């Protein structure tokens, strides 16, 4: 009952939507002059495709580009179906002048009616001016699509409810259902750009449904991976699946983490970790049922890096926590003109693989990058390690040094910019050959970028023989052809043997007669029309005599009729036969201008009659009543 009410409510809600809505949504409420702003104009229509989509009026911005996409939704309820078209035009705007920029209204024409959106206002500030806290977007008219409230299945890890908006901190989304359900969780729902967050997808399967291969079930249950658009990811799936047992709603479930990832948001705004789909096939003795479940989508608010304190030329890739830098030369002494390797080791939490690390600037030496390798975080440790090697070529003898190797970064733990420094670098340079020019120093290839994750699942096995190399395959491939060939060959041989013994079967005569009649019907038969009429008559009589196992030719029409009635043949067929034979005899002996066409007509009638005779039950002579 409750389920029916929920379904009815959902259907009513779907049908109660506005038939056409035009909404504008900006990715930020405040931008600096020269910055880009993303604006989505969404036209949702259940009255068909928009006939016209107007441009986007903007003040204070200029349109850099736009992309349009279209999708369709179908829903059913209340005895009718709803077909909804959604056209999303994504504009990229550049802020031109400080003040309050206005975007909209967007306009669309659907079904001859004109629909328009509200207007969005965005604060445009001067460069390097910090954004005003929480500048509201003024949206008169129809409101833009609000950020969806967290799914009711999502809660704090301690079971506390999530706030309707502006949530922060870890969240776990689960909606217990029978047989199977998925649980998605993230370590934080509000992060800075580039700040890592941990995503877990846990599968719960009822204990009674798991047989002897729990690992196999858990490794294959996910049918669609969660959509992680806007995130870089590092996969941390364990090499082995560890299962646990818990009691949910009075049912015992085995659960295991099947996806474990570190996600790095790549753009500010609201990102969504899309739902994953899992399915389980329940095999019973006489039927098979497939259970499909979907995990909840989780919204993550990604904050831009603050302007305050940002070093000039700062790369937004340099986001980490507790970053440590260690730098050293690979040797104790150098020779002028000869490259020496310098190693810089970064360690800390964050996407160190994406860090921009500039070569050190030495007075009296050139430095180019010669190697780079990354040790990714593991399930047990979120700390990454990156080793960068530079080839440093001193140009003159003396001492070569640097107070420290420095890397600016944004520390998301402290919410501020920091500079990671190594210890002092110093090395003696002996006189050597003439220094090489900077142009001659080709950078070595970047070895081992190492951003690809490993596959922990064990699918080991030996490669079997290919199908085409097995006799069974060729037997299976050729067996049908051979069987058909044998069938034809056997039938042909049997016909020859019967011919030699003088045995004629009705089936053989049927085929022969059918072929003769077809030739005549198509006008391809040899001989004059009289001969064709004779062939039509002969085809029918030969077959009938074979079926009756007694001669029919030479009898009067009356006697033939009586014999056929005695053989149990239907009266209507006998009448048709008599008419056709009379027609043939008439045609043979009464020439006319269109005799050729008449023979063809007779042949067509004879084909139908021959089939009717073939389908009819005829008692051979002497056994009829």
């Amino acid at each position, binding site marked *: 009952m409750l389920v029916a009410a929920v379904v009815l409510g959902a259907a009513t809600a779907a049908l109660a939507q506005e038939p056409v809505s035009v909404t504008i949504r900006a990715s930020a409420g405040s931008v600096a002059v020269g910055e880009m702003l993303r604006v989505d104009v969404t036209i949702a229509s259940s009255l068909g495709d928009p006939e016209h989509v107007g441009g986007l009026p903007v003040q204070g911005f200029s349109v850099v580009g736009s992309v349009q996409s279209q999708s369709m939704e179908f829903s059913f309820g209340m005895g009718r179906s709803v077909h909804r078209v959604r056209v999303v035009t994504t504009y990229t705007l550049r802020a031109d002048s400080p003040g309050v920029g206005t975007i909209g209204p967007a306009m669309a024409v659907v079904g001859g009616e004109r629909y328009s959106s509200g207007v969005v206002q965005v604060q445009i500030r001067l460069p390097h001016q910090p954004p005003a806290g929480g500048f509201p977007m003024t949206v008169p008219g129809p409101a833009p699509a609000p950020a969806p409230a967290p799914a009711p299945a999502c809660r704090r890890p301690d079971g506390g409810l999530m706030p309707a908006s502006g949530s922060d901190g870890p969240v776990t989304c689960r909606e217990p259902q029978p047989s199977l359900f998925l649980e998605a969780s993230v370590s934080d729902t509000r992060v800075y750009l580039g700040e890592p967050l941990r995503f877990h997808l846990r599968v719960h399967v009822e204990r009674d449904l798991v047989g002897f291969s729990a690992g196999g079930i858990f490794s294959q249950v996910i049918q669609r991976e969660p959509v992680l658009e806007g995130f870089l990811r590092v996969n941390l799936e364990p090499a082995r699946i560890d299962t646990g047992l818990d009691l949910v709603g009075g049912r015992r479930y085995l659960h295991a983490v099947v996806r474990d990832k570190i996600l790095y948001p790549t753009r500010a705004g609201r990102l969504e970790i899309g739902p994953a789909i899992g399915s389980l096939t329940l095999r019973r003795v006489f039927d098979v049922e497939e259970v499909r479940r979907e995990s909840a989508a989780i919204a993550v608010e990604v904050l831009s890096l603050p302007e305050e304190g940002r070093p000039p030329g700062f790369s937004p890739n340099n986001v980490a926590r507790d970053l440590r830098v260690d730098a050293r030369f690979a040797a104790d002494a150098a020779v002028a003109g000869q490259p020496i390797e310098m190693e810089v080791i970064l360690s800390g939490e964050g996407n160190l693989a994406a860090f921009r690390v500039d070569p050190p600037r030495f007075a009296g030496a050139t430095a180019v990058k010669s190697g780079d390798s990354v040790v990714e975080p593991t399930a047990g440790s979120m700390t990454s390690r990156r080793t960068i090697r530079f080839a440093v070529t001193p140009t003159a003898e003396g001492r070569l040094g640097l107070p420290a190797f420095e890397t600016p970064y944004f520390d998301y733990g402290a919410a501020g910019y920091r500079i990671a420094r190594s210890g002092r670098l110093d090395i003696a340079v002996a006189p050597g050959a003439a220094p090489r020019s900077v142009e001659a120093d080709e950078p070595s290839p970047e*070895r081992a970028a190492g951003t*690809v994750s490993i596959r922990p699942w064990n699918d*080991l*096995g030996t490669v079997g023989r290919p199908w085409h190399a097995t006799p069974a395959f060729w037997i299976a*491939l050729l067996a*049908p052809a051979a*069987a058909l060939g044998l*069938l034809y060959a056997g039938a042909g041989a049997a016909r020859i043997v019967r011919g030699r013994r003088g045995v004629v079967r009705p089936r053989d005569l049927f085929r022969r007669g059918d072929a003769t009649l077809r030739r005549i019907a198509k006008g391809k038969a040899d001989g004059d029309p009289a001969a064709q009429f004779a062939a039509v008559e002969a085809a029918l009589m030969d077959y009938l005599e074979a079926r009756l196992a007694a001669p029919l030719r030479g009898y009067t029409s009356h006697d033939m009729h009586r014999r056929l009635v005695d053989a149990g043949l239907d009266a209507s067929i006998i009448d048709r036969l008599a008419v056709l034979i009379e027609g043939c005899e008439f045609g043979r002996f009464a020439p006319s201008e269109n005799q050729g066409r008449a023979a063809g007509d007779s042949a067509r009638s004879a084909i139908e009659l021959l089939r009717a005779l073939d389908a009819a039950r005829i008692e051979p002579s002497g056994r009829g009543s």
Partner: protein
Amino acid sequence: MRFRISDFGFRIWLPAMMLFVFVVLGWKDSKSEIRNPKSEIGSVFAAANDELAAGRHDGAIAGYEALLVLGMESPNLLYNAAVAYRRAGMLGRAILALERLLVLDPRDAEARRFLDDVRAQVGRSRPRGAGTGGLFPRRGLLHAASGRLREAEVAAAAVVLSFLTFGLLFARRFARREALRLGLAIAAPVSAVLLAVACVLLWSKAALEADAAEAVIIAPVAAAAREGPSTESPESFRPAEGDIVRVVGRAGGWSAVLDESGRRGWVAPGDVGEIFGPLVIPSGQMYGAPP
């Protein structure tokens, strides 16, 4: 009264049969657990993965190669081996592992992207003017058409279409209704054409790929291609790591190769790895093996 299968005690003997099969299989499994080193092989794979995750590429490569020498070859093993090779800077071997992976699973998009990435890395690392044409195999249209299909899929399709085609012809022989005969007369040639296409694709998989004899130069430093199969023969050219070549002859472990520009030479054992056919890792070329 309708016939019911349960009337014959189906519900009794079916579970009994299942129980019997379980007992037999369970007994066989328990025996194979003792004699079969499958669990040990799995633990080698897991240990190699752990090594790789911890950044110890050498240990990971040693583990993966030990499995490959045992004849184990699977998509995940080759993928992880490629990751380890790449991180260790052995890009030619990474390309070879990924090419072999794509033979096993041609629709592994992730591996395909990874292969492109590794090739791009090899291309970037080459000096200006060295050329990158040799990195990309030149394959024909037929090869490309069957490239995304597994051999087993094409072979299964051919068998099914063979049964369908000749089954339709068989049915037509006994069909009496004219409409049915006409339908069968149309369906049988269509099915025969599909069967012919499947056979051509199978021939492409079975013969063309093998005849192409593609191989990857895996020597980390440019291997020397010589005029004869010995180290005393003069050097004819130097194929670069990661280049695709054709193996056109073999002698005493040496391979005669043709590069993309048509140059021919003999390369030493272990400098080249074949994409199709059995994977051979000479013991002296295994990672960490004594020189």
